[in-house]
């Protein structure tokens, strides 16, 4: 252990807080730019005859695009640190450059994707590009800032064996994986299909029939991020925050021993039980959808006797 226990816990708490913000903002960035799996529906809609005003980015899978952005920020930060810049200045400039590069990818990706849909008459709205791109850059800047800060703290304060860009790359990939698994469900499963009945899964027949009208006027990506910021984003933040905090907490307290590993197993058991409680709760609230055939037969047999 490099630091004493109190300081280690303080640093760990800071890492957890940074990770929570990064996770939340990463998911919101993927909602405002429409990326990853739910974007398949945004892409499909014009082919089904549903033209829309939603940004259509999907640079690549979320882990890769966020990994690229974070590693760009990490490299610039490392170069500036070698040039004797203050760490905070170096991280801010690094994150800004990475976010601007990300913005370039977003615009070319949007223009390219819409251009490929010419035959379905999907227009390329210049106002959408003008209003949404700065929002994408802003969200990505905060994500990059938090991730490169985590990498800097791990490298410079905690003494991890990997360099800042490599740590930033790993956390970029992880935040993308969590954002894609958690927050995107809120965007893809709920926000895009608010026209389905609440309390059931999405019928495959509804594919491509995304909601195009907003609370007021036509829906755009800014409306989507407003909605997802209420639940999808914070839940993603909790996911990454828990990951960063609990993956280091046992070894911080109990050192590099088997005891720490056993504590890790206990954390996993607690999480499994929590998931089970959520499962019981939601099963009681919604469903079952079909009547149990065996029970139905038993009831009918009882009636005939």
């Amino acid at each position, binding site marked *: 252990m490099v630091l004493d226990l109190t300081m280690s816990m303080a640093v760990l708490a800071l890492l957890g807080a940074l990770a929570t913000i990064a996770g939340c903002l990463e998911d919101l960035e993927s909602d405002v730019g429409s990326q990853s799996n739910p974007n398949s529906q945004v892409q499909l809609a014009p082919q089904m005859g549903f033209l829309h005003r939603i940004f259509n980015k999907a640079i690549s899978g979320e882990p890769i695009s966020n990994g690229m952005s974070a590693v760009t920020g990490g490299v610039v930060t490392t170069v500036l640190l070698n040039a004797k810049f203050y760490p905070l200045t170096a991280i801010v400039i690094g994150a800004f450059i990475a976010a601007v590069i990300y913005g370039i990818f977003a615009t070319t990706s949007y223009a390219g994707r819409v251009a490929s849909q010419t035959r379905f008459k999907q227009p390329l709205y210049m106002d959408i590009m003008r209003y949404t791109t700065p929002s994408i850059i802003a969200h990505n800047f905060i994500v990059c800032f938090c991730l490169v800060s985590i990498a800097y703290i791990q490298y410079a304060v905690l003494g991890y064996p*990997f360099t800042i860009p490599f740590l930033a790359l790993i956390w970029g990939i992880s935040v993308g994986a969590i954002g*894609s698994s958690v927050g995107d469900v809120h965007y*893809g*499963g709920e926000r895009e299909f608010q026209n389905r009945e609440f309390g*059931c899964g999405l019928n495959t027949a509804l594919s491509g029939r995304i909601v195009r009208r907003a609370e007021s006027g036509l829906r755009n990506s800014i409306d989507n991020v407003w909605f997802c910021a209420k639940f999808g984003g914070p839940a993603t933040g909790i996911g990454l925050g*828990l990951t960063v905090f609990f993956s280091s907490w046992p070894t911080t307290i109990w050192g590099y021993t088997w005891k720490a590993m056993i504590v*890790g197993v206990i954390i996993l058991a607690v999480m499994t039980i929590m*998931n089970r409680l959520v499962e019981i709760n*939601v099963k009681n609230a919604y469903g079952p959808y079909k009547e149990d055939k065996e029970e139905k037969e038993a009831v009918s047999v009882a009636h005939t006797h």
Partner: protein
Amino acid sequence: MVLLDPTTIIDILLIGLSGTLICLAVHFIPVGGAPAAMAQATGIGTGTVELAAGSGLVGLITSSYMYAYEPSADVYLVMAAGAMGAAIMLASTMLAGGLIYAYGVAVPFASAQVKKDPITGERQDIYVSKGTQGQGIPTICFVSGVVGAALGGAGGGLIYFVLMGYYTPLITTHAAAVAGVFTMGVFYVNSVIPSYGVGGTIEGVHDPKFKRVVPKDVFTSAIVSMLCGIIAIMIAGGMT
């Protein structure tokens, strides 16, 4: 020939074993792909590569830190650290994802592959919503995912341990960087192989696909991973 040295052969075999472990691990993780992101299928709403690599790399961070700061750490402890990091990442993801399925999209968790959950014994088929292939993350999928992530993290820890042992005498200061990047590469290779086998989605150990595709995928992975091991040893030829 450096490749015929018994220690080197053992290293290559260990890298092959770790890669195979990662490939096997991916089959345990309930990957729902794009349909799960729209609550149309059971599992986590993203792809195999994203999940396996994302969780495995968190395991790589924890195992590398263990290796760097516990000089007496044996291979089992480094593997356990990797397993713990990866499993906690995936458990956190599934827990947060479960909250979205339950309270954001509002769907009961149900597997479409089994009639009853093997762990809780609860009926699944009656909770499958119309026009879907199940939804959410039932207990069996959660447990299967945690076990899978732990296996993957342990595999990553083993590769890192083997490569650090090999590279450290050659390039003292940069050994961690080369070993880390190479471990990441092996993760990606072995996350892609199962994607072809499972066809994008698998619910976990209880899915009939599991028994069908695991032998073929594991065999492919063992060969490919050993090839990776040979390359890892060969690139050390220029390190002096």
